[in-house]
């Protein structure tokens, strides 16, 4: 297993932790709104410089990017390249852009440290294009860096898919 493995039980339900979870949920919902509205530059600004954005393959959801094949293994530079690409009208799979709708639930805090928090959340990202609407389903694993004022930046964002094959969309052409 890789280092993202986390305890099955999250943090205790103290008042402070529940408030922190609300702040995390608020952040995730705002992030989803940016993505669903294709406001990708603002979305990119949510990341730390040492950020990682990972999507493992469907057969190895626990894949380790240092030795396994992933669908996506972006550092900040590649992520910026991905955003630039998606904004271009030459990213043909997303031109014209698909419609997306992100449903995020079961948000759980699994680790709270002084300056960061680990989060898990279930997702269904619906993508609609070319007469087909179908979901990507899976779990997000985030490491969020705590910022002054009760907000966050994203240090690690990992989207593990439950799908066995990319059958409907044939690719991960949007930000998952």
């Amino acid at each position, binding site marked *: 297993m890789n280092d993202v493995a986390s305890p099955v039980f999250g943090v205790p339900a103290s008042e402070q932790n529940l408030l922190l979870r609300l702040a995390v949920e608020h952040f995730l919902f705002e992030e989803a709104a940016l993505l669903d509205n294709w406001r990708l530059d603002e979305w990119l600004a949510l990341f730390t410089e040492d950020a990682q954005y990972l999507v493992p393959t469907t057969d190895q959801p626990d*894949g380790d990017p240092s030795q396994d*094949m992933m669908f996506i293994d972006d550092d900040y530079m590649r992520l910026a390249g991905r955003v630039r690409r998606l904004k*271009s009208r030459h990213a*043909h799979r997303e031109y014209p852009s698909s419609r997306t709708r992100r449903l995020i639930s079961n948000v759980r805090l699994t680790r709270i440290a002084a300056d960061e928090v680990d989060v898990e959340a279930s997702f269904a990202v619906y993508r609609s294009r*070319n007469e087909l609407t179908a979901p990507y389903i899976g779990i997000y694993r985030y490491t969020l860096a705590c910022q002054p004022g009760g907000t966050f930046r994203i240090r690690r964002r990992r989207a593990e898919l439950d799908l066995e*094959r990319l059958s409907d969309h044939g690719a991960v052409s949007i930000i998952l």
Partner: protein
Amino acid sequence: MDLSKLIFEDTAAGLFRVHRSAMTSREIMELERKRIFDRSWLYVGHDSEIPEPGDYQRRTVAGRPLIFIHGRDGRIRILINSCLHRGALVCRKDSGNASAFTCFYHGWSFDTAGRLIGVPDADGYSADFNKLEQFLAAPPNVDSYRGMYFVNFGSNVASLKDHLGDARELIDLTMDSAEPLGGWKIVRGTAKFKVRANWKLLAENSIDNYHFRTVHRTYSDYQSDRRERVGAPAPSVNRITNSRSLAFQNGHVAMLTHSVGRAIANPSPVWSKEAAAETAKLRDELARTYGEERGHQMADISRFLIIFPNHAFHDTQSGFKMRQWWPTAPGEMEVNQWEFIPRRERKDLAAYRLEGAIMFQGPGGFGTPDDVEALESCQIGFGAPEVEWSDLSRGMRRVPRSDDELAARGFWRQWHALIQGRDGAERTQDLPFPERAVRPREARG
């Protein structure tokens, strides 16, 4: 349907066209099953996927459920994953290590050589039945080349080696090139996806450099941004004019391009000095071991090979990967993609390799999603039967480059011969021009 008319070829006029019903007809898809997939050598797996006795991988090949297994007796076998009793799968995990397989339906069990070793309540069967030696079925032909295992469900088939023919040289170059690093192994993580397009469009796409500038502009832009960021020069070699399109016997086709960013062994200008020095060392070693010319081919040339009918062997600046695809409907295919790495590669080169392996080719890369869009877009276009023909005439009057369509024509010529029930295409190459067009008249004149 007149199968002989599915391809139109006129060398004098420089025309090669494929009838689009080949991509839309259920009748043709059924013929492909019988006349191509049921009698071709089909890739199953690589021995690095099952290194230890008992290791297995489940595979589906031409619709058959198979187990690719390293037997406890040390032999690699391919078994048909269907219980001799009533047919249920005896193995239902995608991969693992087994000492035996027990069918969950009635409990018949088989060892890793496929031998029936246990039947619950054997008293219910006759003494003669219990004496029978029974084995899980196996495909009629199993053969391997350089660690790659293939099956063929036909009868009276040529050996795999003969079938691969001259295409073996490209396979050998890649396989030999990793020998100083302990040989190749497949890494964990298979890209599995579907494309809503006819399977033959992916064959065409895989050996077509004509679309690179139009479809993959965002990838080129990203690469030049990267170079600018570190002040690296653009590649000095023109990748197109120094490239080739090739067609071998038996429908295998390829394009060769001169490319940088190959961990074996031609560095990208954005790599570290240490990594570049290491690739230079490796390049020298290849030249010493295999001779200057073969060493150059190994290090500097990207090989995009299609092993007919449905297997891509791509050793390129985007890593070394294999892809296999299967029609699931005239307008739909399933694709599986595996990545290879040398067993002993320096960490920095391995990191560059993996980066290159997923930045372009693969469902989350900057290239493949747009290829998928192109193929699906063609398939939607085929919805208009009034437009009967697709054109593959490019490069019929010059030494074909990678942005020409000789390789696609080679694939289609073999396809056309097999679909008509013949054993193979009479010729792989275009007829020379202008001989055919001019000489007969001169001779008569």
